[in-house]
């Protein structure tokens, strides 16, 4: 039986009177690619931040690889990694320097070798010695992905992994993620509002709205359940149903 990589129970985050995440619970199994899908302000980034320990929950439990993330996050952090458009890397450092610093923070063995391998893999070799701040958005995304893969994470958390990328680069990133998961058996949890991306990459989807998980399941199951043709239509159907419920209340 496949063991869980992430177990979340009754997770809540309140900012003063605003409830950003409202008592959600879910499990992501090892080797699975799952998604938190929702519009702006649905609570996806807040949930990822709590999973990583960047944000402390107001209530609830998070276990990653069986460890309580609120008490023993440092046991787990070497095994996971993260990429998000909301964080950045130092602009004045070159790509190589950035990777060298992060490699040391993760305690990566044979670091130079690892950087060269990732550079070849992610096609970042030609700008390895260029300052990170001088790279294009697509190049930065590939470098951020290289940073996120430095420690060959068993769990990869990705926030909007293809946001602001042109279709070609976005497709390249998705293909790379599929290959990485297939090769390493890693678990991937991504937060996205790109329906096509989620439909292609994920075997489990959690639909979020106003801090709650309003529906979940494999993409094809959700599409069949709502009698729609794609995930985008499912998302809109759920959003409108919820709006109607709110109006009725």
């Amino acid at each position, binding site marked *: 039986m496949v063991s869980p990589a992430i177990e979340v129970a009754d997770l809540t985050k309140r*900012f003063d009177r605003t409830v950003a995440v409202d008592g959600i619970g879910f499990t992501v199994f090892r080797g699975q690619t799952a998604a938190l899908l929702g519009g702006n302000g649905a609570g996806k980034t807040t949930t990822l931040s709590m999973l990583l320990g*960047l944000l402390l929950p107001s209530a609830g439990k998070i276990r990653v690889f069986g460890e309580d993330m609120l008490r023993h996050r440092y046991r787990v952090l070497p095994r996971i990694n993260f990429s998000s458009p909301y*964080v950045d890397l*130092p602009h*004045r*450092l*070159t790509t190589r320097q950035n990777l060298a610093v992060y490699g*040391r*923070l*993760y305690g990566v063995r044979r670091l130079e070798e690892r950087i060269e391998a990732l550079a070849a893999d992610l096609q970042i070799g030609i700008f390895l010695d260029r300052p990170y701040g001088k790279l294009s958005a697509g190049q930065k995304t590939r470098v951020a992905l290289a940073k996120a893969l430095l420690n060959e994470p068993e769990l990869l958390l990705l926030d909007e992994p293809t946001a602001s990328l042109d279709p070609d680069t976005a497709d390249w990133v998705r293909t790379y993620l599929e290959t990485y998961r297939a090769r390493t058996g890693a678990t991937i949890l991504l937060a996205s509002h790109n329906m096509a991306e989620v439909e292609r990459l994920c075997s489990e989807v959690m639909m979020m709205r106003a801090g709650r998980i309003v529906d979940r399941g494999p993409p094809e199951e959700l599409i069949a359940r709502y009698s729609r043709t794609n995930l985008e239509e499912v998302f809109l159907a759920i959003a409108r149903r919820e709006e109607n419920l709110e109006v009725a209340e």
Partner: protein
Amino acid sequence: MTERIAAEAGFSPGRVWAMMLRYLYLLRSSWPRAFELVYWPTIQMILWGFMTQFLQTNSSWIAQAFGVLLAAVLLWDVLFRGQLGISVSFLEEMWSRNLGSLFVTPLRPYEWILSLLAMSFLRVMIGVVPAALLAIPLYHYSIFTLGLPLLAFFVNLLVMGWALGLMICALILRHGLGAESMAWLAIFVLAPVSGIYYPVSVLPSWLQWVAWALPSAHSFEGMRGVMFDGVFHLGHFLAAAALNVVYLGVGVLTFLYAFRVARVRGALLQTGE
């Protein structure tokens, strides 16, 4: 997969070195930043050096203590650069929106603090030592003639700079980059009561109590003791050291508390401009 990584469960000097490397890369990549470290201590020393030469011929008090102003200028810079060394390295992470990436690594906040302290020491050495050396050919004055007491003043002022730097970082972490100017301004509030260029006895008596609560006042008073009387006042040294233990403790705790509050408020992900 885990064979590739050797992340240590407890304290890791490797992670402290990684963070130092990050700041050293930055210094290396920008000569104006490195130049700035040397620039201000040198300019200060040159200005006050000529001032001292002028006063030497016009004031018997100063004539008895040639170099007292120069020594004070250089030691004040140890305090100021020590604080700035912490604050600027910290701000580099805020400016580059890097905190979110850093704190999903196994880096502990106290390892980061250690790297900030180490970088502060390096920045002070890069800034103050050339200025001190330049004073020798320019004014035939060497601060190194203070001997071992110089080390005592240096350590006490540097540690006070660290403590203040950590408190300022906590403030910036709490209030965001809107409080950035505190990194450059805050320490000057303490300058008048630190007795840098004049004895603490010059101050009104109620303000002297404030002064004696500062490690800097004890250090500068101790410096004048060595320069005027040729005596190292152990009492001032011990008072400064004891106060520094308290200051540094408060600095570290304030910083760690602000870091925890930042995790509650989600500030680690929203640190850009």
